[in-house]
């Protein structure tokens, strides 16, 4: 019997928030090392949301964002994504490369830099998760999309929607120096993987 996301208890959600906290802390450290700047993050939120409400996050479905997306394989499966509003992505590129390309964030070098940042902070997040839970977690190669938030988010929700009407989102916001970078980090575990994750961190109260 697989579990239902909407039936997660408060203590299970708290445990998942803690996992998010450890992962995101590591990711923020990695980001600040790449940028040689201080990076702050918010306390992660572990939220259960109706799938159909998720695309409304991030300032609405049509809001232009850049997303770096990876699948997770190993003991647990799921999706992980680093999302940036366009202006934050531009700032990030300028901090990394010193100047913006003529094509802005559509430029090849910019996109490659953003993909690499997404890759590094995602790996940092997953390394921490893996060390904490004792689970083997392997990310896929990263893929970048520059488009409407709704189109990007709904696409990573589709698989989950075959088995559930709800998503568990572990979200953290990163803020660079003087709030110039405002990125969002989402982890969406698959249904069966939630069980595995909760068991491995000793937070499973029911079956």
């Amino acid at each position: 019997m697989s579990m239902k996301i909407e039936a997660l208890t408060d203590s299970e959600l708290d445990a998942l928030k803690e996992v998010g906290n450890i992962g995101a802390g590591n990711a923020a450290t990695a980001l600040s090392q790449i940028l040689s700047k201080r990076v702050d993050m918010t306390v992660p939120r572990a939220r259960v949301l109706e799938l159909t409400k998720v695309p409304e996050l991030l300032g609405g479905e049509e809001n232009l964002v850049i997303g770096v997306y990876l699948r997770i394989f190993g003991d647990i499966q799921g999706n992980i994504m680093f999302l940036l509003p366009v202006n934050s992505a531009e700032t990030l590129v300028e901090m990394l490369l010193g100047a913006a390309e003529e094509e802005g964030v559509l430029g090849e070098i910019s996109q490659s830099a953003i993909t690499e940042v997404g890759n590094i902070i995602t790996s940092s997040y997953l390394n921490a998760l893996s060390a904490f839970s004792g689970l083997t977690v392997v990310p896929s190669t990263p893929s970048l999309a520059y488009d409407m938030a709704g189109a990007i988010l709904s696409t990573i929700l589709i698989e989950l929607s075959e088995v559930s009407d709800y998503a568990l989102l572990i979200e953290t916001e990163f803020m660079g120096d003087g709030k110039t970078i405002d990125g969002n980090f989402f982890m969406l575990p698959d249904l069966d993987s939630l069980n595995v994750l909760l068991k491995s961190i000793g937070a499973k109260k029911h079956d």
Partner: protein
Amino acid sequence: MTDTIKVGMADYKVGENPSKIITLGLGSCVGITIYDKGKKIGGMAHIMLPKNTNPEKRSLKFADVAIEEMIEELLKKGSRLSGLEAKIAGGSQMFAFSSSDEKKSIGYRNAVAVKQILKELKINLIAEDTGGKFGRTIELDLSTGELKIKTIGHGEKYI
């Protein structure tokens, strides 16, 4: 005054002239519009998956359920099946992994399933804008049946 009816993910809405119906940010999802030119009424659905797999729980996230219910509502408003025309948009592959084949992507499968369902229901599909690697916002003008498609970086068009 023209009002705009918004359709969320996994939902459908119907309306009449002079309203417009809009859905934002279609990625792998498919938007289906069904229009009755004579009566100037129509509907739009925003589906996520091809076919309902659980017979006990019908959900509008599935193409077959959403299309059937939308058509039923239009028939109740006095439309006839033969007078209905469909247009579809969306079904893209937002993320390209080197190993992935576009024909296996959920967006592609959604578009194929929607066309099959329309064919089975004998609804004439008169235009489509599907595939690619980008999102779409679509708006149906119920005074004309024209479907406006907006994208980021891939222009705007009418089908």
